[in-house]
C-alpha cells in the first residue's frame, strides 16, 4: 500500500487508483507494414523490471484522469508524477 500524489486531486491512497501498465509505448505509424513479431512486440511485450519503471495510472475512484508515475518497483517509492503528454521529469 502506498500514497500516490494525483496531479489533479492531490495525495490519495493507492486503492483509489488503477494501474495502466508501462508508459511511453509509441504505436507504430504503419501497423500494416509490420511483421507479426514486430506487431506482437508492440501489443503484448512489456518490461517487468525490478527498479525504476515508468507507468500509467488512472485515478479511477476520484477524478478519473490518466497520468504517468515513475515508481521504483522494488520498494514502491514514487520518484515523480506528471500529466499525460508531458515529458518525464527524470531521464528515461
Amino acid at each position, binding site marked *: 500500500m502506498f500514497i500516490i500524489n494525483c496531479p489533479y486531486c492531490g495525495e490519495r491512497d493507492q486503492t483509489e487508483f488503477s494501474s495502466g501498465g508501462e508508459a511511453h509505448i509509441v504505436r507504430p505509424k504503419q501497423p500494416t507494414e509490420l511483421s507479426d513479431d514486430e506487431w506482437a512486440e508492440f501489443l503484448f511485450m512489456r518490461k517487468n523490471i525490478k527498479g525504476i519503471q515508468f507507468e500509467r495510472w488512472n485515478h479511477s475512484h476520484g*477524478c478519473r484522469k490518466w497520468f504517468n508515475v515513475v515508481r521504483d518497483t522494488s520498494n514502491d517509492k514514487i520518484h515523480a508524477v506528471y500529466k499525460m503528454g508531458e515529458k518525464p521529469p527524470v531521464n528515461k
Partner: protein
Amino acid sequence: MLNFETTVQDSKSYGDLTLSEVEPILKINLRSNKREFSTKIGKILSIIPPIEANTSSSNEDYSILWLSPDEWLIYSNNKISYEQQNLLEENLFKNISSINQGSVTNVTDHWVMINLKGSKIYDLLSKSSPYDFKNFKMKKGSVAQTLLNHTDVILHNIDDNNLNLFVRRSFSEDLWLWINDSARFL
C-alpha cells in the same frame, strides 16, 4: 418520465448522528473545456464553476462541485419540483450542449443524496474510507471523491459536522445498510 422513487427513502438517528436521504434534488453533470463555458454557467446560475481542485461554489439555491478539471456536478440545495428541474435543465442544455460548449447531463436519478449530520460523521466515514479527512473537515465547501466501503462516493462538506454524500443509485441500498450497521457501533 423520470422516476424519483429511491431505494433508501429513510431517515435514521443514532445518538448525535443523523442520516437522511434528501430528495427530490436536482443533479446535473457538466463537462466542458471551453473558455466561455464558465461565464455561461455564471449567467444562468449566478455561480462560477470552481477551478481549484476539491472545492465547490454555492449560492442560495445551487452548489457546483469540482469533480475533475473539466467536469462538475450541480445540485440544488433545496428540494425542488419536477417542473423547476426541467426548466433549468432545458435552459442549460439550450445554452451549452446545443451550441457545442460542453455537455449537460441530468443525473438526478443516477445519484442518491444522503445527508449526514453530527459530531461523529468522520468517525463513521473513517471506518471504511482510505481518504484523509483532516483537511476536508476543516474547510467548508470541500469536495472529495473517494471510496466508502468499496463504493464510489462524492462528499461535500456543507458546514461543520454536516455533509452531503452522493452514491450511485444501484449501490445506495447497500451503502445505506452499511452506514446504519456501522453507526450502531460508534
